[in-house]
């Protein structure tokens, strides 16, 4: 009996040891040292290809252009990538012409086909649980009023669009806060709110059309206010929504907020600063881009732009590791774009050529 007990004890101890070893030594499928970096989303030329991902390893200073091709046996990205972000060990790419959702792993390897069904002119997504909420303009948009635009509720597990939430007015940026989905309408002066439990839809009137959101630590939202040709407004800048009351409490005036579709609104890592891209004519009537800085603590825009004189500005990203600001620019959709890196204080550091027409970036670590 004692012998049996000793055997049993030894076996149990061995199992514990080995299971502990497995726990500690199970290889990480996506080791940080291999995936860490800034991944620049290059849109390319609509319907003409040229989209790509550029990987910038900010630890080594190396830039790898056409990184998707490098990781996928030379295959091209066949959609123009409008937006990309990571969620739950996957990176989702929003593609136009072909309209599709492409899923890649953190190595940017694609092993499954993109999802095209019920995805028509997709723009942006936000993730929640097992779902992506994807703003779509519809198959044949009427660019004046966007009557057929919607948000597709895409199940990540089943890889199917389960529902289309009809939101006329051209939803662009999306955010989820306090159990509600917020959609920034780009063709109508309002923000749409969808209660994710009841799917009840309401609207918040705004003085101008909007494009993108930022969510603060209290689950409240900042959003851009723009003036476009079809929806002119003098009241451009940032708006603020208290998501508990769904009221727009304050507007912060800023001239010439960029109407581009890309990453024009970003915050630093502790949400003390918000950066907004603007485009305006200088004293010589040259149109140049700039990055305006909004100080969250005192709720004001700095009088001087943090970064200025960027010709062809097309996007913005902030490195969460060091708060460096990455500014993207491109004049054409067929040539190399630029990525310029600035410190948090706006000091120029360095620049790199990236793919065709960079519109933003996501960071993996």
């Amino acid at each position, binding site marked *: 009996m004692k012998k049996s007990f000793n055997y049993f004890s030894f076996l149990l101890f061995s199992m514990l040891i080995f299971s502990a070893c497995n726990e500690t030594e199970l290889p990480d499928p996506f080791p940080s040292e291999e995936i860490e970096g800034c991944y620049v989303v290059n849109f390319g030329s609509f319907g*003409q290809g*040229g989209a790509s991902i550029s990987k910038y390893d900010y630890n080594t200073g190396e830039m790898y252009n056409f990184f998707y091709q490098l990781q996928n046996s030379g295959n091209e990205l066949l959609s123009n990538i409008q937006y990309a972000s990571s969620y739950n060990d996957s990176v989702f790419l929003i593609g136009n012409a072909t309209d599709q959702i492409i899923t890649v792993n953190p190595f940017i390897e694609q092993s499954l086909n993109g999802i095209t069904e019920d995805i028509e002119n997709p723009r942006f997504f936000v993730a929640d649980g097992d779902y992506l909420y994807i703003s779509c303009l519809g198959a044949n948009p009427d660019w004046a009023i966007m009557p057929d635009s919607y948000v597709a509720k895409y199940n990540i597990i089943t890889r199917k669009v389960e529902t289309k939430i009809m939101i006329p007015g051209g939803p662009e940026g999306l955010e989820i806060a306090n159990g509600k989905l917020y959609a920034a309408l780009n063709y109508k002066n309002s923000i749409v709110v969808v209660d994710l439990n009841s799917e009840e839809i309401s609207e918040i009137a705004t003085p101008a059309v909007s494009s993108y959101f930022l969510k603060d630590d209290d689950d409240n939202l900042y959003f851009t206010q723009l003036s476009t040709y079809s929806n002119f407004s003098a009241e451009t800048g940032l708006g603020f929504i208290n998501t508990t009351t769904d009221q727009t409490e304050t507007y912060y005036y800023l001239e010439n907020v960029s109407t581009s579709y890309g990453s024009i609104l970003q915050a630093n890592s502790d949400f003390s600063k918000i950066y907004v891209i603007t485009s305006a004519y200088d004293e010589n009537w040259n149109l140049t*881009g700039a990055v305006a800085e909004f100080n969250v603590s005192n709720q004001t825009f700095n009088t001087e732009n943090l970064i200025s004189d960027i010709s062809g500005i097309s996007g913005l990203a902030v490195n969460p590791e060091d708060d460096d600001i990455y500014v993207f620019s491109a004049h054409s959709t067929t040539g*190399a774009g630029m990525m310029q890196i600035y410190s948090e204080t706006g000091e120029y550091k360095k620049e790199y050529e990236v793919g065709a027409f960079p519109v933003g970036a996501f960071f993996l670590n």
Partner: protein
Amino acid sequence: MRRFVILGLLVSVLVFCAGAQNSHSLLDTIFLEEIITFGDLRKFQSGAKIENISSSQIELAQEGGIENVLNRFSPVYIKADAGGLSTIHFRGTSASHTSINFGGINLNSLTLGHSNLSTIPTFLFDGISLQYGSSSAINGSGAIGGAIYLGLDNNWINGLNVSAKTTIGSFGEYLIGTKIFVGNGKWESVTRLYSFQKENNFPFNNPYSGDVENPGVVEDIQKGTAIKNQGLLQEINYKFSEEQYIKSSIWIENSWRQVQANMQSNYHYNGTQEIDNDNIRIWTEYTNNINRIKFKGGAGYVHDMQVFDNNEFQQIGTDRFIGEVQATRDFTNKFGVKTGAKYKYINPNVHAYSDSVIKFEEHLDIFFSSFYRASQNLKFTLNLRQTFVSNFNAPFTPSLGAEYIVNSGSESFVKFTSALAKSYRVPTFNDRYWGTQGNPDLKPESGNNFELGTQFNSNKNNCRSKLGINLFYMHVKNWIEWRNFGIWKAQNVQEVVSKGIEFQGNICIPLGDFNGEFGFNYTFNPVESIKTIEENGLLNRHLNYIPKHMGNVFFTMKYNKWHFFTDGQFTGSRYTDNFGNKLPAHFIANFGVGYKLVVQKHQFSFSISVNNMLGADYQNEKYYAMPGRYFRFSTKYDINIIK
């Protein structure tokens, strides 16, 4: 550049030597024939390269737009998809650098600046002439790279001539058209009517399915690429005398097409957009050559309207009224002048223009032309033009030409030509007035064109042949393109140099009962941006979507009632982006045979052709499929009742 200077010097030396050796009188028959063919174009542009596409060649490619004819029988690059969008790129220039002329009307859209050649039906026209190089001094704004002249025959028929044609082709292609000439020698009515449609559901190999689970090329069928064009061109002409007549024409055209999806979208096809164009073009012209001062006056109206995807709120259109007068006086057969003025009133109707910015625009062109024949063999021409545009400054545009003709035998001559020309293009309405992106501060594009050429012509027993070589150098400043500056807007972005050499030949081959004709064109055309405002823009590299090498050959043979034809077009590789990606070169070959049956006054023609007979798998625009081998069967009926 040095090679061009050397070649230029070589041609100049040849001119001098030939002139020194032989300065006898001209071959009148050949010279007269040429004047008749090109008329005024040649008279005041002696150094210009102007070529006709023969009526027999036009006959071979009447289905669809004029891009089919130009592709097959000229060395001009046409960037086209299969879905009814094709633009012309003369000598490496952009689509808006070619003026396309119908009477006194430049067909180019005033909003976009260029024409979609697929909406200009070959069937309606009897002649197409191409002028290579700048001709702004003659044709005004836009004629930087070249010009196309669409011609109508006026036979002043006394009787009735009716022809009707039908074509059935692969992939749902149908053409039905008729031309009715009726007149009494003074009055003439010419009615041309056609309808063309194409389903375009051709099979192709799709390497861009995006299927990562089953990678490889898949067999696919093109979807959503249908074309339906129809038009009526009605002429009413009256001849008071041989020297005095009035001609009028009204051309009503509707062009509808679906926007071709790229290959990757076609594989996951879920619909496409439609583009519907309505055009009305009216031109009336009175000619009086009775007096010493010859007078010509014309008036016209053009209505262009494009609706995208049935959205009536997003119309893009213009209406324009045109008036032109000109007087010509030949003081002697050695010296003559022409002067005149052209006025345009343009009313845009574009959803994205603000009325506070643009309600209408006026253009006034004043021009002067002259020729001077220093000897029977040597001729100079001078053209001057100044355009005035409300709210815009257009440059003064002169051109100077010279030609020297040397008899090289009793039935042949050699012609040496040279031309210097300035050119310009006023920015389009979209460039200046589109939404908040229009740029009213744009400068006009301006070019300098230098040209040298030589051509050998012979005419033996009514068998005409010619061989030619041309060198050109073109420098275009303030080249306008739309660029991102935070917002997308038109901007003067670069300077471009286009240079090259062109060979062309047309050789008559008499073989007893067989009558053969062989022709070829070849162009070597480097085009580079030499200055750009973009920090990392394309510089000192060949431009995108312009082939450096292009060529074509064609051969026709007639034997009794039979005729055979074959032709082939080579298009060199083209850059598709600034990263150095290229579309590979391709070669398209066509073959056909026809038979004519004449029964009294009735003539029946039948032809069958196979196009792209080698089944070339190619793209003219990256990611857009083109059809492989396809067939056409045509029947034509003619009746000619002359009193």
